[in-house]
């Protein structure tokens, strides 16, 4: 059952080939069997999952099942789940149980999906390798000596190893797309505002966006149908119609204009990754697309801009983690200052502290104009690059990452090298555009990700462009050995 896509599982449930309880038990068994090594889950909510599966089967019996009813999935441990621990992979929130569900969790729950558990991630979503988790690193199922990417590394690894048919992720600078690429799955970061951020623990509020991670573009379309839409509890969510993304799949892409930004094919790009992406370009030509070379001249400014904006916002967002009302509190605080300093000093890991320090500095009086304000201005330039490009093309194509998965520990002590792993994904968040990653080949037996970037709220087209490629290729059907 686990080799099926979510769309196939949906059909199987509808045809009565298996029940939700059987399906859920199957994936729970796989988690028990394989996750000891992969470490892709922080919490497995077995009892709750079976209860939800039983309810889904009852709902199906009553003729009220939707396309997602009864299908298991995993939630990144950044989404608050009523009654199940939400740790954000931090010692700080290790004891935290939210009294409410995130909107994404609630909506997928209403669609009848079964939550298997909460996936591992970089602490507070800060990292590109899943090595900053308080619960230890996640292993890449394609090579357990390698990282799965981050920050949604647990979600990506669990789907790649088919411990879950699908998972939710969040993407602030590439945290859905980069691990999807490194683990050989399909992941979508929607337009900023498409999916509610309510109940999703904030890293950088102006960049964070939740999205689906699954085996195929079709699966992502099914999930996005349930996830997307206006939420009165998130002022930044878009008050805009949600098209049926699944129904929109299928149109041919004859004459589609695909932009190839020259800045995404330059120095630093691994030749095998480049070759896999070139092969995908050839495939798109065969499908009738027209390829146009474009330029995104401010691409080189994206990483430095991001590392001012994101830390600035996180330095403020994480202030509520103060040891006063919830989460970790140090032993025997002497006074208030001691309580703050030690609770935060002991509760946060080094990467989180680094970003809080950088962000607090960037917002300080006397430095604000030079850093934060300047970064916001450059952000406008980067957005304008894309707006100009989309006057000429329908989608933009390039590699998701410069290299395939790197080895565990390889970049752990070199933050700047780590930050460059997101060099092709970060600009998309700064501009607020939708972007996705889908598998397009291998480099030394490790998956390579193809990135597609769409115009604002053009997820339907983006998903179909990916879907047409997946109809013509089978890269997304490959599974890692041993799983």
């Amino acid at each position: 059952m686990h080799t099926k896509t979510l769309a196939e599982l949906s059909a199987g449930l509808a045809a009565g080939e298996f029940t939700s309880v059987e399906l859920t038990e199957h994936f729970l068994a796989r988690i028990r069997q394989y996750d000891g090594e992969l470490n892709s889950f922080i919490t497995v909510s077995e009892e709750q999952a079976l209860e939800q599966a039983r309810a889904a089967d009852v709902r199906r019996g009553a003729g009220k099942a939707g396309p997602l009813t009864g299908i298991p999935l995993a939630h990144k441990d950044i989404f608050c789940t009523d009654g199940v621990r939400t740790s954000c992979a931090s010692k700080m929130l290790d004891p935290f149980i939210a009294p409410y569900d995130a909107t994404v969790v609630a909506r997928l729950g209403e669609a009848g999906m079964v939550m298997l558990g909460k996936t591992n991630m970089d602490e507070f979503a800060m990292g590109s390798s899943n090595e900053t988790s308080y619960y230890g690193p996640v292993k890449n199922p394609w090579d357990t000596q390698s990282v799965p990417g981050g920050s949604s590394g647990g979600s990506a690894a669990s789907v790649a190893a088919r411990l879950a048919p699908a998972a939710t992720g969040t993407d602030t600078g590439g945290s859905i797309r980069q691990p999807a690429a490194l683990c050989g799955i399909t992941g979508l970061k929607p337009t900023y505002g498409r999916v509610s951020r309510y109940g999703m623990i904030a890293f950088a509020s102006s960049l964070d966006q939740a999205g689906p991670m699954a085996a195929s573009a079709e699966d992502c379309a099914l999930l996005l149908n349930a996830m997307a839409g206006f939420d009165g509890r998130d002022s930044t969510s878009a008050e805009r119609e949600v098209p049926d993304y699944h129904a929109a799949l299928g149109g041919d892409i004859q004459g589609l204009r695909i932009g190839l930004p020259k800045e995404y094919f330059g120095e630093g790009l691994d030749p095998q990754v480049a070759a896999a992406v070139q092969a995908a370009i050839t495939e798109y030509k065969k499908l009738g697309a027209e390829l146009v070379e474009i330029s995104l001249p401010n691409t080189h400014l994206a990483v430095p801009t991001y590392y001012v904006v994101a830390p600035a916002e996180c330095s403020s967002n994480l202030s509520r983690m103060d040891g006063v009302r919830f989460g970790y509190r140090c032993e025997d605080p002497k006074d208030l200052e001691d309580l703050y300093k030690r609770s935060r000093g002991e509760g946060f890991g080094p990467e989180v502290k680094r970003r809080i320090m950088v962000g607090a500095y960037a917002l300080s009086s006397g430095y604000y104009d030079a850093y934060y304000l300047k970064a916001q201005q450059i952000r406008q330039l980067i957005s304008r690059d894309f707006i100009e490009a989309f006057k000429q093309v329908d989608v933009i194509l390039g590699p998701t990452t410069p290299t395939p998965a790197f080895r565990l520990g390889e970049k752990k002590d070199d933050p700047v090298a780590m930050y460059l792993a997101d060099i092709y994904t970060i600009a998309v968040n700064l501009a607020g555009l939708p972007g996705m990653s889908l598998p397009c080949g291998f480099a030394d037996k490790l998956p390579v990700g193809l990135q597609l970037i769409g115009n604002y709220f053009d997820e339907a087209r983006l998903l179909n462009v990916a879907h047409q490629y997946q109809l013509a290729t089978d890269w997304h059907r490959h599974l890692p050995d041993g799983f």
Partner: protein
Amino acid sequence: MEWETVIGCEIHTQLATKSKIFSGAATAYGAEPNTQACAVDLGLPGVLPVLNKEAVRMAVMFGLAVNAEIGKRSVFARKNYFYPDLPKGYQISQFELPIVGKGELSIELEDGQSKVVGITRAHLEEDAGKSLHEDFHGMTGIDLNRAGTPLLEIVSDPDMRSGKEAAAYMRKVHSLVTCLGICDGNLQEGSFRCDVNVSVRPKGQAEYGTRAEIKNLNSFRFVEKAVEYEVARQIAIIEGGGKVVQETRLFDADKGETRSMRSKEEANDYRYFPDPDLLPVVIEDDFIEALRATLPELPDARKLRFIEAFGLSAYDAAFLTGSRELGDYFEAVAKATGEAKLAANWVMGELSAALNRADTGIADSPISAVQLAGLIARIKDNTISGKIAKEVFEAMWNGEGDADQVIDKKGLKQITDSGAIEAIIDEVLANNAAQVDNYRNAEPDKRGKMIGFFVGQVMKASQGKANPGQVNQLLKAKLDG
């Protein structure tokens, strides 16, 4: 040397919305601790703020009332600092782009003159919770009921020159926000509190002196007292060769002095930046014009109308328009009785004194406007004298009923029957034969003063119920006979 005082005020008015500025929790005062704090107010991970549109409407109303520029695009910003009663570790406020820009209002000075005070800006922000340091055995209790209550912080230009002016300004803003119905104006519950920035400079000097900020003054009198103390303190420092330090101070009402809370060196860097969770507030002209049409009669306009329509003095009119409720009360009494002067005297005199003694407001007055009008009507139709009326008022205040009921029950009806009054006069004259002789032997121009004695005796004999005018007239006739 002659010194000049310079004062600017920051007034925090709690807006009278039903729910909080960024959550659906109730704002009502006095609930059990932490029963009016939802996940958003608690700052739990993952929650997001959603702006209460009613708070925006109220802020714009204030802006219109002080003829201010309304910020067509205002932005919420985060003010970052750690404190246990600040759940998110930042306060959502407005910084660079406030909702209300430059405006002005006029204050009445003691000499009857008025003075224009500039409003620098007014911005929306959320209140913090409360830290309770008592009853927790060395620990601190946190009550987050108040966290997220909407505040409008009104910042004045440094235009005031004395404690009295500062208090007059605070009173004026108070009358304005209560008249607009955007604040309940309750000073005891902290709905209206004032921070005062005070500095002194040699008269004629253009630059400002170093200022001290006195925080959280919740009474008009405290503002005046705190400024007076602070001015004297600063002058003494400078004249003694020292320098005033820029700092935040607290006013100790019991001792009548200010003391240091923190100096500028210890001040936080608040690291303001636009809150990415909230969109800029965009205000359309249509919205502004629609609100302008709903503005009630403002205190200045009402004051003018009271002077013109009721013939009140400027002082009385200013007093009676100090709050919307007081103005409404007076107007109801004046209209019901057709006796504006008498109504003004009673409202400003007996009634205000009684309210002050009871430490309560006009809204909670045990004597309604209709009841007071009933009392005045009995004075007007000579049923009772002004003096007896005070006795009736006391009884009414104590809940003994309407004026007519009290007059009836206590037999206070004025004696206007000439025969009855004459009988009393005859008795008084008979009992005071010596005084009668003195009177009659006196020069006519001395008699005017001497008659007072007989009036007093007659009033006393009638237990104050004889009509004083008639007593005078009849006495005169009999004595001069």
